[in-house]
């Protein structure tokens, strides 16, 4: 099920993420309705109504067996996830920068 952040304010930006069913890869919901492995292609959501709409789509994609465990992730002003956990999900294991889906390492504090 989609996790709704009840405390989310209208101006807070977020994206919808999940793991892809077939291979477990981290994916992000785009504004075209498909799921991308790249965070920068994600639809940045800034209103509750858009969030609810995106969550509805995520539910359908769970039912269609395309993704599992979708939830929303809050972003900072640079459109980077607020938590380190979500940064690691977005940019790959910091110990293997070559696995970063978008090949930028500077967005996550590295070793």
């Amino acid at each position, binding site marked *: 099920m989609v996790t709704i952040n009840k405390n989310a304010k209208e101006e807070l930006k977020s994206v919808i993420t999940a793991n892809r069913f077939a*291979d*477990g890869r*981290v994916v992000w919901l785009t504004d075209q309705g498909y799921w991308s492995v790249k965070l920068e292609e994600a639809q940045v959501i800034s209103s509750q109504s858009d969030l609810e709409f995106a969550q509805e789509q995520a539910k359908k994609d769970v039912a269609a067996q395309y993704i599992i465990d979708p939830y929303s992730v809050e972003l900072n002003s640079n459109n980077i996830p607020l938590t*380190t956990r979500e940064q*690691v999900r977005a940019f790959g294991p910091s*110990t293997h920068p070559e696995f970063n889906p978008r090949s930028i390492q500077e967005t996550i504090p590295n070793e």
Partner: protein
Amino acid sequence: MNNNPISSNPSLAVGRYNYDQVDHDFLKERINQFRSQIERRLSGELSEDEFKPLRLMNGVYLQLHSYMLRVAIPYGILSSTMLRGLAYISQYYDRGYGHFTTRQNIQFHWVKLEEMPDILTHLASVEMHALQTSGNCIRNITSDEFAGLAEDEIIDPRVYAEIMRQWSTLHPEFTFLPRKFKIAISGSSNDRVAACFYDIGILTRLNDDQKPVFEVWVGGGLGRIPYKGKIIRDDLPPEHLIAYIEAIIRVYNLHGSRNNLYKSRIKILVENLGIDAYREQVEKEFATMDLDQYRLSDDLVVQIQERFGRPNLENHPQASEVLEAHRAQDKEFDRWVKNNTHPHFHNDYIAAVISLKEVGKTPGDASTEQMHALADLADQYAFGEVRVTHLQNVVLGHVQKDKLYELWQGLKKQQLATANLGLITDIVCCPGMDYCALANARSIPVAKQIAALFEDIELQEKIGPVNIGVDGCINSCAHHHIMNIGVLGVDKKGEEFYQIKLGGSSYKEGAAIGSILGAAVKAEEAVKAVEKLIYFYLEQRQSNEHFIDTYRRLGTAPFKEIVYATA
């Protein structure tokens, strides 16, 4: 010295149980069953909620970035063929490496769900599986990495570990225990398996009649509430091993909590009941059992032993002399021999411990190329046998002393000759939040930063033996509770912080759970704190004290002051 009459049949792989047709058929059947379950999941017939317990029973997790497969390495023993099988999986189904864990398993972090049955089929072809590497069942049974070669060994624990593996695999009574259940066994009274921190830990001693008996520990564990186990019986005849541990687990299965995840391990039950009351219940249960049915007769034990290959250890009278000459001519080799070998009961052989802790690399990881190289070196120098340790290193157990120099040269070519065993850079580390869905913080970068501070091998030797465990969460896969210095990652509003523990010790003699030093700090401060602790110890130590000795002499307070003192 171990005098077990293990088979010397040259067609059998050395050091491990070789499957017969029944074993092969069993695995094939199980893989087909899981293949069918995956197909039903892929077709939508099974929901994720329905499928999850099925995949977990087959070692398949969903981690942060991908599915992960955990493969059991029973009692830590691999043949070169098995290791090549793992290398193949790492190359063709994963991303060119695998991660050896403290439970003598290997994890592949980048596998696809639909490829899982093919991976399991490949594993089965080299007599391996992922059964019961997850779920609330009896997990992979761990053992002493020096089994079958240690001078102090009384019985070969691998034979009994194999018997327990066969007994526990799909045991109808114990498939849905209150929580996971971990067993470790050593054939020596010297604890090399951290026996008192297992659900059941088994050590071996000789009784007054000079007969081997098991000393059985119960109720140990790490995790959220760490406990040192207690001895439930110290004179268990090996023939009653299965009956007795079945009685222990029956009592747990009946009374263990199923309502509260954090109180469901046997350690909580033993603590709540008290060891005497727990023992009483076990003895009562044991008394009702048909012991003839459970008895491990000599015939049965020999039957299992005969499925193990034994190394053909020949006498090489010049071997020690040649080794000494090599040590004298090459100081780097001499250092590696001093730090990374263990005596063998046969004087012409030695056990080589290969560190997977090269500074700058992820502790416990081995690349595809390294796995192939280790398999080749095992064939060439160690009867094709490889052991995986619970401290995330690898052992080649039976190396002819006069060939050790050649082996070391081969290891060097693969960056596998790091001479840091038991030293400060031999850090135990879980995958942490770089991979693990349960983790609160990353552990690998912290471990690497600590190791980098002490890269100088002369400094490491000056510091002397000290163990460090870095965990990304309280589940304690890296054993931070029982390390001299434990580092635990915690989450504070989405940020990584690290708590430091001091004074832990893993083994029976002096086994202890560490004490929290103070408030959690950010990663860079945690690394600096470890540095301060070590230099403070160097200033304070007396004569030949190790870190743990100085800590025990001084107590926590001065160490705390050195870390948290404000300028």
